[in-house]
């Protein structure tokens, strides 16, 4: 009897605890979202203000590209190749294997290229941005900028966010190209789809809108990855541990944002394009 009561108390206590924890984490996320929004607004305030530091932009442009290009080439080609295989064996059952080309091309253009590129860049460059800025924060380099009268958002965040916004669609285009090349090789050389038909069907089913959809998505992903990476860098407060945590948060939230935004962008763009 006593045991039962004890158990009940325990359950009630756990329940209260977990709901209050939930409440706390909801408040914290709302608070965080507010701070992130303010950070974005500050970005838009500073991005249009001179001086425009082109050199910093090109450094970041090079950095993001350089960090991700090899992985993009590798994952792009294999994604295209495996797509060709999978669709081929499915489509063959209903004798539409000539459609492997357009299906792969469309999936890559609208979904796989921008989303996978976004995930890769979030994991590589987004993480690096948080680590760099976080380190500068804890070693007072950010304060040093501010003391000199240089706005740290303008100096550190603006070039990174702008560079990510420009670079991700370019990398996504590269992913698309190399993915289609992989699919073409597997489709025509290994699976023996007729080369002329392969291209003809792509021409028949694929339009410029489809490519635009991917480019617009990738641009938004680039912006959000850059913003999240730099934001978590600036959020770092204490020590090397803080830098690690910030980097981790940048990757997790960068990837989640890409996947969540992808859904909303798809439903939005389908109506517009």
């Amino acid at each position, binding site marked *: 009897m006593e045991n039962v009561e004890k158990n009940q108390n325990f359950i009630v206590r756990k329940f209260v605890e977990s709901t209050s924890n939930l409440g706390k984490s909801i408040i914290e996320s709302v608070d965080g979202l507010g701070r992130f929004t303010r950070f974005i607004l500050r970005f838009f305030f500073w991005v249009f203000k001179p001086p425009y530091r082109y050199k910093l932009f090109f450094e970041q442009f090079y950095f993001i590209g350089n960090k991700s290009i090899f992985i993009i080439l590798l994952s792009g080609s294999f994604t295209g190749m495996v797509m060709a295989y999978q669709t081929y064996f499915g489509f063959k059952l209903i004798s539409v294997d000539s459609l492997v080309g357009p299906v792969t091309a469309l999936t890559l253009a609208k979904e796989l290229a921008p989303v996978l590129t976004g995930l890769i860049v979030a994991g590589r460059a987004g993480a690096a941005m948080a680590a760099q800025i976080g380190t500068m924060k804890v070693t007072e*380099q950010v304060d*040093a900028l501010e*003391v000199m*009268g240089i706005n740290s958002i303008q100096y550190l965040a603006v070039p990174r966010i702008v560079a990510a916004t420009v670079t991700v669609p370019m990398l996504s285009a590269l992913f698309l190209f190399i993915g289609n090349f992989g699919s073409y090789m597997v489709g025509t050389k290994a699976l023996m789809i007729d080369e002329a038909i392969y291209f003809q069907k792509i021409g028949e089913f694929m339009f410029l809108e489809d490519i635009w959809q991917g480019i617009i998505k990738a641009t938004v992903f680039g912006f959000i990855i850059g913003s999240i990476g730099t934001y978590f860098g600036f959020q770092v407060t204490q020590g090397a541990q803080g830098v690690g945590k910030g980097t981790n948060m940048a990757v997790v939230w960068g990837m989640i944002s890409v996947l969540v935004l992808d859904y909303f962008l798809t439903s939005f763009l389908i109506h517009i394009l």
Partner: protein
Amino acid sequence: MQFENNAVSIQNLTKTFGDHTVLKELNFDIPKGKITTILGFSGAGKSTLLKHILGLTKPTSGSIHVLGNDLSKLDEVELRGFRQNFGMLFQYAALFDSLSALENVAFPLREFSKLSKEEITERSAQLLESVGIQKISHKNLPSELSGGMRKRVGLARALALSPDIILYDEPTTGLDPITTKMVNDLIVETHEKNSNREMTSIIISHDVKATLKISDFVAFLDRGNIIEYLPAKEFANSTNELVEQFINL
């Protein structure tokens, strides 16, 4: 204390974070052209005070005048421009770790002066040599320099725009005795070299012995207020209980 010429003049400064009052009705004048040190226990509010002088933090109430300018009258852009009157040496130098020693010193010149590329390089090299960094180290990254050398580079960077006020945040905390002496000598030497243009040095420190040796004036900050402020020579004779405790630690 009253001075003829103030570099910094603070009246009734109060700063609260949430419900935590860090600075309380603080009045404090810092004389021009002298070395003034602010001592105090950890958490006393020294860094917060420094941030107010730099205009990085806004007071909850009270006013701050720096070089005759009321900081509250300056807008964001003017304030940023105004900071060029300051040089600051951070505790761990805070050098930009992707830039070489020379580029670190050149940084403020590139951002704010109208000098040509060659002139900037030449001036930066001069500055580095004036703090005792030899030519062979000019191209080194901060990670390739010793702690003492980093401090020297940080000082050269702080001096690049010939500031009217130079701030040192715990310049010797965490350094070995020899480097500590070197940094203290460097502070005095820098001050003397710039005395013709009345540069003001403000130091935040824990190190009582060195402070009394190198400073002209010493203030003791405790729980948000200046509780003792004397010429360095008289500071050791303070009758304030907390100050006595701090000195004899």
